[in-house]
């Protein structure tokens, strides 16, 4: 139950400055309320990983690595592969992070990312089955924060999706009497969907997109909306202590849907730029 | 007579610019709402009053409380006062004024599980409640019987102009020390009297807000004592 404090200390005069700036409809980094920070993506740069991506949103940097192995399926879904998302906030990413097993914040982030990949399935899990009831592929997605400057969820979401996009895994077949045999070929993971994680914070009466760490620390609460193909909402998470009205939620969800196409194209553009 | 009603967190009480919000109430604009499960008393003379029926003691400077020593350190003791923070009793506030200093182990003065009758002299959000024993009537309690009730009902144990407490003392012929933090020490070891006192205090705890309490307690006392 013990947890590290993730909210940075902000001197009072700095708080005042930030709040006053918001009153004038401006943000400390000169962005408009519904503007994302610059997005940079590198991917496939870690050869030992089956898929990888490093995503920067302004100064926030998140790394995602994919490893594929073979395991027994869950008894409840004998003909489906498995996706597991893990996240860690290592001390490298912030003076406030401490070594140790993932805490509640990291676990929450992993589970939010996971939610966006599951319904609708981003990967056809049936295609990851080798022998029903016995052998299936298991996709491990490990998310590592490298630098925390707010809104790690959106960055982590992009990193997970892009890492999956460039995942190639060893193809195995089942041969009678021999068991699993490496075919020597590599299979490319194909994605059926394109979830985008859109995080807003509420600070007083203001709603801001893609908060930096200081904004996140001052926020009453944070709402992550996951939007997928067809303008469908495929996940929501409120985090943070403050309450929010239904009208404000409506505004945030509507804005997230409005932004979907632009964010998606922005990600695709970045991906096509940097191999 | 005043009107009483049961209130819950967020129950609307009154709309009044002049009413200050406090522990048991909070304000949005000029509307005052309850923040506890309790009784709301509206009377012409006393205005708005919220009686809390649950919860721990909330320390107030000036209150006399009955504390239990939980820890000793070099210069002070930690004292449980039935609240959300432990109080501190500094050594300098525990010794008589004449004695400028004290040398030797402080455990000679007070040790863990000792009971003190003390006054809160300081408390804010940065400092825990600070206790003193340097006042007439305060000090270590060395014998007696400890009874605990809901702190919000202590005023009823005392009664208007000490009427209730006076009556109990007289009828049972014993002395009582009453702490604002819901603790009462009966200065007696008479088993019979203690049992009657427990029943009386229980009755006050249960019926604290029912009119005519003093009379009912008197009847109870008289019927028990005559036996």
């Amino acid at each position, binding site marked *: *139950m*013990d947890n590290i404090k993730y909210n940075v200390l902000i001197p009072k005069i700095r708080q005042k400055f930030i709040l006053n700036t918001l009153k004038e409809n401006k943000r400390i980094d000169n962005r408009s309320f519904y503007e994302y920070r610059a997005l940079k993506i590198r991917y496939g740069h870690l050869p030992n990983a089956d898929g990888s991506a490093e995503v920067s949103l302004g100064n926030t940097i998140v790394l995602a690595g994919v490893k594929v192995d073979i395991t027994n399926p869950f008894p409840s879904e004998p003909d489906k592969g498995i996706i597991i998302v893990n996240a860690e906030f290592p001390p490298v990413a912030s003076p406030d992070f401490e070594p140790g097993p993932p805490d509640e914040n990291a676990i929450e982030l992993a589970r939010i990312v996971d939610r966006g990949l599951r319904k609708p399935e981003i990967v056809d899990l049936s295609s990851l089955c080798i022998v029903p009831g016995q052998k299936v592929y298991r996709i491990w997605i490990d998310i590592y924060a490298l630098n925390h400057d707010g809104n790690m969820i959106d960055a982590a979401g992009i990193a997970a999706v892009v890492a999956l996009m460039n995942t190639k895994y060893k193809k195995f077949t089942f041969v009678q009497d021999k068991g699993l045999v490496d075919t020597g070929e590599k299979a490319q993971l194909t994605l059926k969907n394109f979830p985008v994680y859109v995080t807003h914070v509420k600070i007083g009466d203001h709603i801001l997109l893609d908060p930096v760490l200081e904004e996140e620390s001052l926020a009453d609460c944070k709402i992550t909306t996951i939007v997928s193909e067809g303008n469908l*909402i495929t996940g929501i998470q409120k985090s943070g202590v403050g309450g929010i*009205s239904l009208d404000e939620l409506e505004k945030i969800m509507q804005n997230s849907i409005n932004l979907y196409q632009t964010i998606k194209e922005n990600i695709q553009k970045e991906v096509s730029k940097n191999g | 007579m005043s009107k*009483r009603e049961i209130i819950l967190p967020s129950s609307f009480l009154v709309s009044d610019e002049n009413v200050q919000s406090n522990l048991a109430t909070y304000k949005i604009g000029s509307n005052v709402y309850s923040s506890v499960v309790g009784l709301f008393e509206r009377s012409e003379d006393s205005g708005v009053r919220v009686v809390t029926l*649950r919860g721990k003691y909330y320390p107030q400077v000036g209150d006399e409380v009955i504390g239990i020593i939980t820890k000793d350190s070099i210069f002070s003791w930690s004292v449980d006062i039935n609240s959300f923070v432990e109080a501190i009793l500094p050594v300098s506030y525990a010794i008589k004024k004449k004695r400028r200093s004290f040398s030797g182990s402080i455990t000679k003065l007070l040790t863990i599980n000792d009971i003190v009758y003390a006054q809160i002299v300081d408390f804010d959000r940065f400092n825990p409640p600070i206790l003193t024993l340097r006042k007439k009537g305060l000090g270590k309690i060395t014998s007696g019987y400890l009874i605990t009730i809901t702190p919000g009902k202590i005023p009823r144990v005392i009664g208007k102009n000490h009427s209730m407490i006076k009556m109990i003392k007289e009828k049972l012929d014993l002395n009582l020390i009453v702490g604002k933090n819901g603790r009462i020490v009966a200065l007696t070891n008479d088993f019979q009297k203690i049992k009657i006192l427990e029943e009386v205090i229980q009755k006050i705890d249960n019926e604290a807000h029912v009119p005519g309490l003093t009379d009912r307690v008197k009847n109870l006392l008289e019927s028990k004592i005559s036996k």
Partner: protein
Amino acid sequence: MSEYKRVDGRAYDEIRPVKAEVRVLKNADGSAIFELGNTKVIAAVYGPRELHSKHMASSYESLVRVRYHMVPFSTKDRKSQPFTRREIEISKVLKEALSASIRRELFPRSTIDIYIEVLNADGSTRVASLNAASLALADAGVFMYDLIAAVSVGKINGQLVVDLNEYEDQNSDSDIPIAFMPSLNKVVLLQMDGTMSLEEIRQALKMAKNAADKIYQVEKDCLKGSLESVLKVYGLL
């Protein structure tokens, strides 16, 4: 809309029978049992009390710690893992929702510890937990802004339903646990899992609000009842 009929025969906007009781554990400063049909949850509040870990204490507000836990025999298959990632995440969002309802600034340097045990799980355990914990807080006399009323709403076979049971939880296309401070018109917990259009979410939230209002009423009656039993005897009420 399709022909989904609820397994337990309820109307789509009908919550299961609700039972609430406070003062159920003597040791705790406040406690409550909350039941939604076969979902049974018990919550205990200890505190506000001295926080012995000084580096975690704040001079401005009390710490709130929440542990949501399912007992091993609460589920169909025995739950063998001691503390799952799911439980850690739920503990976090419950903590945040409950914190929003507490006037924490009145209890500097202290902690309020809330322990929740799911005794029998039949869907909607996290919202039942929130209701139980909020009642336990009120029972403990903790100064708070409002009670929390929480409920789940979901979509199954294209049909929106409130208060999902285990079967509906397992078979739904999407579900939303949501919690309100009804008198203050604030949402303090919101999660969504699954797929929905914005219009469906709008309708779902409306259904959830109506159901939460009913739960809110049960909570208020429960707390009043806990006092009335004492006070009625003496002709006060």
